[in-house]
């Protein structure tokens, strides 16, 4: 049974779910090691291609694991790999969220909530900076990001879809002339 590729997928991926501390970028190195070197499900080049696909399509970049499951065992493999990655951390998060909401209004709840809020805000801004760094779009990426920030301060009710479209249009225009 341990040789069943679906079981192997679960054994490799499920632990990564709880190792992804600070976001999914923490799992890429161990995932590459397991899938390329140990199990040889994909070549190093394929791994990078799948990584790129997961990045440019909607959804978390960690859907790279979905693609690895797909390579290993088709659609069923994709489904198993996806569930193996998202279920363990979701169950943990569910448990914490339920406990958290149950104690709303207590003194320590207020302290934790107010204490974690500036950390969350700092992480949010740091996350934006890191995304811009990964995208590697240079000054244009920063300019569009700050323009959107300024625009939303001025017109808070603008629909996100419109802002995303404007960002895409600016990139297209600048790339076309340069």
């Amino acid at each position: 049974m341990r040789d069943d590729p679906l079981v192997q997928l679960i054994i490799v991926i499920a632990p990564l779910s709880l190792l992804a501390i600070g976001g999914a970028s923490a799992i890429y190195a161990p995932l590459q090691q397991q899938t390329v070197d140990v199990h040889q499900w994909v070549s190093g080049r394929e791994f990078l291609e799948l990584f790129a696909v997961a990045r440019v399509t909607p959804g978390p970049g960690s859907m790279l694991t979905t693609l690895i499951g797909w390579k290993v065992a088709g659609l069923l493999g994709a489904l198993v790999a996806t569930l193996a990655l998202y279920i363990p951390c979701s169950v943990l998060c569910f448990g914490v969220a339920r406990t958290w909401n149950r104690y709303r209004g207590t003194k320590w709840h207020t302290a934790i909530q107010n204490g974690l809020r500036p950390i969350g805000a700092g992480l949010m801004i740091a996350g934006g900076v890191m995304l811009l760094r990964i995208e590697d779009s240079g000054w244009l990426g920063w300019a569009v990001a700050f323009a959107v920030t300024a625009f939303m301060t001025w017109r808070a009710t603008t629909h996100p879809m419109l802002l995303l479209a404007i960002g895409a249009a600016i990139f297209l225009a600048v790339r076309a002339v340069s």
Partner: protein
Amino acid sequence: MSTPAHPVSLFALYRLCFVVGLFSFGGGLTAWFHREVVQVRGWMTDDEFFSGYSLAQILPGVNSTNMAVYVGQHLRGAIGSTTALIGLLSAPFVIVIAAAAVYHHLVALPGFAAIMGGVAAAAVGMLFRLGMTSARGAHRHIPSLLVLIATFIAIGIMQWPLLPVLLVLAPLSIAASWPRKADAKTTDEKSPPETSGDA
């Protein structure tokens, strides 16, 4: 407790997560989620949303799915979390496999990379704006402002690993936010009442 008076329908929750998942290029669509859940639908307060965001970041796992699980739990419990998670992942699941199948054609499309880059940059801009919203009030509380700046520098600039940074900053920040007798009242006034959910 501040769950909305009439429970949010699972279909509405699924639909919202489906749309946000469908457009979450580059990973930065927390701002859209916040807009729909807090501002447009009034399903949660700012305080509830941002404390959930902190939990979603701090717990291991994928931040965006953790956030969906938190919102789903808040609105409808276990079935809500499941619905939100499936909603968020169902469109990307199909699209990522389809895209991998035609990858070599996709990258050859003119303008494809530019469009993706522009969408991701705009999403980051929305995230910055949400960070400013979340930080509102921090300037009146010096320790909070210091924690915010320290978190940003440690993670965003120094790129230190999250866990040790949290182990140092979180206890300090929580201790500094412990409600003292004098201001316990003001923190109470700020949080609960606006969550009638009738909006």
